[in-house]
């Protein structure tokens, strides 16, 4: 249903020449994966699909088209749309150079444990979708289908609160164990729409902010710095955690920061609109005063 509308929309845009590329999803190697698709010809439109496995946040691919001559169309779910707002607010893409086709998102499913064919309805929702409060795109030029009703979202900070309650050493040991597993593949960074620097501080020559050794301390430095860099800017798409090959609970860090920012400086959800600026980019005279 949505798939057909997608194809029709992409075809029309490409035929009329309104956009030069459409970014969407297509079926991957297995029935349970749908991967990003980049099409530039109307006849390729039939490759596009929208199903329970279109988890990839497509917004970040817009960065690859910074210097494109024409417009780029991209399909956006709720989280992708917030990611587009992130990129717009960070001046990384120009609104007039993108065409956004919104898709209300029913939530994406986890890949099955085995490849055997099975009923997708029985598969659990992805972790990132379970706590999603914005399934409907918050910015778009065209919306396919009707908005989906807001999902009942459990307290998304429950995990953070449980961790906060632990003792200092227990916390340190837990994170230490997790961070020593980090292989510093930077997949979390590469997929993150808030990590949109031209050159990451960790890649730059001469800055010397991060040692190249893969050990606990450097991994700590990397993970804490990554979290601080997206502080107040994270749109909670959960892609970092989803793509982590070591399964590190990265959203536990991002959410901790979001929770603290909300408590300290007032509630803020990044990427919902373009007007509200990230909390670390400004201040209030009456911010909490814990320092003496």
């Amino acid at each position, binding site marked *: 249903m949505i798939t057909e509308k997608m194809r029709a929309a992409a075809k029309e845009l490409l035929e009329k020449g309104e956009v030069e590329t459409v970014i969407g999803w297509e079926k991957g190697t297995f029935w349970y994966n749908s991967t990003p698709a980049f099409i530039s010809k109307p006849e390729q439109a039939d490759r596009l699909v929208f199903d329970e496995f279109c988890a990839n946040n497509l917004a970040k691919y817009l960065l690859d088209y910074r210097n494109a001559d024409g417009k780029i169309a991209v399909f956006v779910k709720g989280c992708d749309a917030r990611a587009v707002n992130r990129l717009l607010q960070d001046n990384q893409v120009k609104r007039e150079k993108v065409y956004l086709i919104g898709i209300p998102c029913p939530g994406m499913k986890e890949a099955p444990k085995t490849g055997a064919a099975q009923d997708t309805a029985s598969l659990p929702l992805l972790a990132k979708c379970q706590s999603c409060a914005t399934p409907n795109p918050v910015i778009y030029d065209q919306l396919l289908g009707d908005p989906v009703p807001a999902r009942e979202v459990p307290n998304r900070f429950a995990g953070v609160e449980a961790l906060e309650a632990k003792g200092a050493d227990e916390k340190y040991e837990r994170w230490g164990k997790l961070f020593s597993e980090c292989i510093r593949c930077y997949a979390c960074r590469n997929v993150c729409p808030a990590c949109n620097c031209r050159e990451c501080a960790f890649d730059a020559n001469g800055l010397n*902010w991060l040692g190249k050794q893969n050990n606990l*301390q450097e991994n700590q430095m990397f993970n*804490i*710095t990554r979290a601080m860099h997206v502080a107040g800017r994270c749109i909670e798409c959960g892609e970092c955690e989803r793509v982590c090959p070591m399964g590190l609970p990265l959203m536990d860090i991002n959410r901790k920061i979001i929770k603290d920012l909300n408590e*300290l400086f007032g509630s803020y959800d990044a990427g919902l609109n373009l007007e509200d600026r990230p909390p670390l980019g400004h201040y209030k005279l009456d911010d909490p005063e814990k320092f003496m």
Partner: protein
Amino acid sequence: MSLNTEALPKSQEVTASPEAAPQPWEPRIVGFACNWCTYAGADLAGLSRLQYPPSIRLIRVPCSGRVNPQFVIRAFQRGADGVLVAGCHPGDCHYSTGNYFTRRRFLLMQRLLEYMGMDPRRFQARWISGSEGPKFQQVVTQMTEDIKALGPNRKMRDVE
């Protein structure tokens, strides 16, 4: 070029002056001090001969807003037992607004470090004005005592 840490004599080695008895462990606190308030406050503590433990090493920055949270992590990594970030009181910033950003950044950082398992007493942020020599003395003394009680920091540390 980066600093060749291997080639440097370690302070522990330097301490071994022939006639001196072996020194007990002293905490090592890295302090970031803004030039206009806290650094001046520390200068005033000196002018007033206010004694405090020789645990702190101040790094002068123009404004507490210049202190990058990564400097703090790097200090712990390299062996600091405690880190202090200090600047002008809100409203007194020489650059008018720098410390408001400091306040936001380090309120957040403090909570994050605690979440990572650091004892919050090891990372402190304080407002110390140019006239608050006694406050500088008191903050350093207190922090040194706290950290002495906690013992040397092993967390996030990569040099033994």
